[in-house]
């Protein structure tokens, strides 16, 4: 049967003005003023204490509800740590599960909607989850005081036990039911840092057991239901392309295939299992309409970006008169940089399961922007958001991929579920599985970027002026976040880390060009810092060497007004033995960068293999992320952040030929492997400052640290990424 989609179904983008009212947030974050119906989980039984962020059950277990997605960064354990500490629970009674989708109760306090991203999870929850623990503790004490007829002030709580000098004692479980009848105190007092029992210590992750035994049902990919159908889609092979027609006769003949449904985003093959669906897709014949598609190659796009940076752009930051300073400089150093598109390639490709009965819909997936996911699904299905339930599951990585301003994978699942019902079928669980090829070719990349920098030095080698132009597609323009984040055409995420650098740079001028392409772009672990830190830190290194100064000493001079950034740099230099002789054939490079309000310095030690490729032997790192809630997890995030950044800088790029993505799987988009991994040493600065981000800040410094080490060996800085383009990887 040949199908013609003459009038494709309207694309499922959220008409955001109808339900999102964006307002400026007092906390400096995104605040979406919205109210969704629905309420937090209610008490199931009378013998439990049920609060929005924790449930204490009669069996003594303390179930913490994580409002944030855990995609490996350890936030579930982190939030449980905050609750357990103020509650004085025993660690082995603490469990964690994900909260339902409910923006009112579970919003990210920096975003004003439920969502995880921007390394904000601990930062926005630090007070809230501790308060939740303290509140429950106060209610348990009040209940025990009544039950025992003793003053509340005489009751002590330790490791999950309430006790009184009279000899009376009870576990949390015994007191939970009574506690639930107590009034919720307005503001239960919080501990002082010297009273913390878990915060600042490295308690083991709560998810390690399930992740080392192959436990069922952990990830979205593993969801199974009776009668479930698995769908794999044939999507357009160019961005902006649409399905013109398809012939599904061969696909329908494949064993196990039950139906084929055309959607705006592609043609879905539904089958009894994944393998049949994949084979059905292989047998499909689809013609795409590329009239509105991106047809250029990535080389042409890179050329366009480079040309843009030759022209003045929109002003993103301006202090003093950079042009005059450059004109009067003793020396001007100029450099052009080129950064490729990058895929996130999380280990678990995207997947989503939906059950829609015509009036309510339930989704199962590693949801990261639950509020937007809920609203997009509601709009597609013609429902109100409260009719959309989301079961958030552990995600096999994300690195930004699942934080979707357009929620395209929810929209696709909702459209499929709707089409399924519209065909007269009974409601059924439908699971969409993305293959690795779908993931790598699927867009939502870190945007391709170009930078042009001109730095003016005086006769003593001091920086007197800095002009910095950036060109690339904005992540925010055209999304629900645009009106908040984009000012005068400038998307802060394109230039973050430049204008607001902690370096004392006079006459710093930053300009931006917003390029256009149908290639969808997205935040990728550390967003704009993925390229801005690279340029800033390699340029500074270059300037220091031109001036005949030591790169660490030169930076220290510029960081006099930022003691925290200075401290991580100094500590790293000390621990790495900066300035001490190296073994033959070894070279060092340094980089330091502030992102997500955390400070990270890294010193990479490298060597070269016989074939000229670079081997990163060791990375020494210092981090200041405020109160270190779980030091071992901070180390893990820095290790992972370094590895993730290193893999990309070495050899990752998504390229296009005539609009089609050249890479398809891990044999062409080459991931970092065990033998690439350097030895990593992480030092954490003790701090009582409010905790800040840790999932992303480890990533930005690694690229420039390695590039600076290469320059120490060869006198040249790599400006065209990835390194594989120069035979270095």
């Amino acid at each position, binding site marked *: 049967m040949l199908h013609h989609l003459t009038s494709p179904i309207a694309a499922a983008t959220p008409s955001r003005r109808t339900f999102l009212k964006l307002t400026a947030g007092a906390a400096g974050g995104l605040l979406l003023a919205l109210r969704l119906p629905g309420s937090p989980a209610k008490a199931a039984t009378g013998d439990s204490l049920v609060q929005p962020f924790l449930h204490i059950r009669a069996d003594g277990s303390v179930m913490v509800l994580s409002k944030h997605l855990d995609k490996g960064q350890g936030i579930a354990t982190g939030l449980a740590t905050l609750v357990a500490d103020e509650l004085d629970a025993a660690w082995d009674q603490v469990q964690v599960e994900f909260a339902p989708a409910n923006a009112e109760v579970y919003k990210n306090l920096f975003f004003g909607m439920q969502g995880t991203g921007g390394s904000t999870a601990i930062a926005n929850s630090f007070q809230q989850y501790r308060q939740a623990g303290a509140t429950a503790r106060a209610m348990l004490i009040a209940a025990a005081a009544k039950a025992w007829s003793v003053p509340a002030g005489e009751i002590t709580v330790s490791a999950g036990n309430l006790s009184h000098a009279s000899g009376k004692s009870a576990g949390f479980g015994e007191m939970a039911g009574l506690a639930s009848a107590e009034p919720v105190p307005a503001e239960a007092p919080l501990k002082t840092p010297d009273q913390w029992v878990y915060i600042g210590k490295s308690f083991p992750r709560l998810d*390690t057991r399930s992740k080392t*035994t*192959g436990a069922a049902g952990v990830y979205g990919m593993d969801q199974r239901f009776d009668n479930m159908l698995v769908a794999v889609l044939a999507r357009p092979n160019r961005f902006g392309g649409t399905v013109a027609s398809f012939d599904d006769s061969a696909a329908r003949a494949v064993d196990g295939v039950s139906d084929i449904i055309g959607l705006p985003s592609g043609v879905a093959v539904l089958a009894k299992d994944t393998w049949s669906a994949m084979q059905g897709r292989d047998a499909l014949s689809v013609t795409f309409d590329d009239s509105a598609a991106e047809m250029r190659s990535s080389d042409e796009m890179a050329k366009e970006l480079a040309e843009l940076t030759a022209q003045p752009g929109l002003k993103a930051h301006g202090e003093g008169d950079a042009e005059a300073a450059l004109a009067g400089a003793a020396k001007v150093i100029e450099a052009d940089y080129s950064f490729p598109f990058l895929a996130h390639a999380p*280990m678990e490709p995207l997947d989503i399961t939906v059950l829609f009965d015509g009036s309510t819909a339930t989704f199962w997936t590693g949801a990261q922007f639950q509020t937007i996911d809920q609203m997009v699904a509601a709009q597609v299905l013609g429902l109100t958001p409260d009719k959309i339930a989301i079961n958030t599951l552990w995600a096999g990585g994300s690195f930004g991929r699942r934080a979707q301003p357009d929620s395209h994978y929810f929209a696709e699942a909702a459209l499929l579920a709707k089409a399924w019902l519209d065909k007269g079928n009974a409601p059924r669980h439908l699971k969409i599985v993305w293959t*690795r090829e779908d993931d790598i070719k699927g867009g939502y990349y870190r945007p391709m970027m170009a930078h042009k920098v001109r730095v003016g030095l005086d006769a003593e080698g001091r920086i007197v002026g800095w002009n910095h132009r950036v060109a690339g597609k904005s992540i925010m323009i055209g999304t629900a976040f645009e009106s908040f984040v984009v000012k005068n055409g400038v998307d802060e995420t394109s230039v973050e880390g430049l204008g607001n650098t902690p370096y004392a740079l006079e006459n710093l001028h930053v300009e931006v060009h917003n390029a256009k392409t149908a290639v969808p772009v997205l935040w990728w672990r550390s967003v704009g810092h993925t390229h801005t830190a690279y340029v800033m830190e390699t340029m500074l290194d270059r300037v220091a060497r031109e001036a005949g100064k030591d790169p660490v000493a030169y930076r220290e001079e510029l960081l006099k007004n930022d003691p925290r950034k200075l401290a991580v740099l100094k500590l790293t230099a000390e621990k790495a033995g900066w300035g001490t002789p190296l073994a033959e054939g070894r070279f060092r490079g340094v980089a330091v960068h502030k992102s997500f309000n955390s400070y990270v310095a890294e010193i990479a030690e490298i060597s070269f293999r016989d074939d000229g490729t670079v081997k990163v032997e060791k990375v020494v790192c210092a981090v200041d992320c405020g109160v270190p809630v779980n030091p*071992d997890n901070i180390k*893990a995030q820095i290790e992972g952040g370094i590895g993730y950044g290193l893999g990309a800088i070495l050899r990752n790029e998504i390229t296009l030929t005539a609009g089609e993505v050249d890479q398809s799987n891990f044999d062409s988009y080459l991931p970092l492997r065990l033998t690439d991994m350097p030895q990593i040493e992480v030092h954490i600065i003790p701090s009582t400052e409010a905790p800040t981000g840790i999932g992303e800040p480890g990533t930005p410094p690694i690229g420039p640290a390695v590039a600076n080490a290469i320059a120490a060996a060869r006198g040249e800085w790599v400006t065209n990424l990835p390194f594989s383009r120069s035979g270095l990887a």
Partner: protein
Amino acid sequence: MAISLTLNGEARVIDADPETPLLWILRDTLGLTGTKFGCGVAQCGACTIHLDGTPVRSCQTFLGDAEGANITTIEGIESPAAAAIRAAWTELDVPQCGYCQSGQIMAATALLTETPKPTDEDIDAAMDGNVCRCATYARIRSAIHLAAEKLEG
């Protein structure tokens, strides 16, 4: 076509197309979802299982290849080496997202069974095919060494 094999110590007869990758037989037909789908083309190791004790990529091993074989998955692996690996993984909190870890544990257990005291070079050779996008590699290496110590007792 019916294929007879032993799965996690149990005799099974599986009636399916012998060309089907074992990965999908395990995950979809039998509901053993601990074995993960990462790439489908033998590039990532997320789907690693043991076939007669040897680690193989189940996405590129077909049901027909398993006739009469002894298959072990993450759900069924029990041996002193496996116990030492799990204990070391837990002690060092190796997993982040965890999605690659079934495959890592299957590969590491096979290594330790074969080579109870592996060198870094042994680890490189045995583990380089297992991708971890969270880059837990440094801990994987340390945990294998730790497991080797534990095995030695």
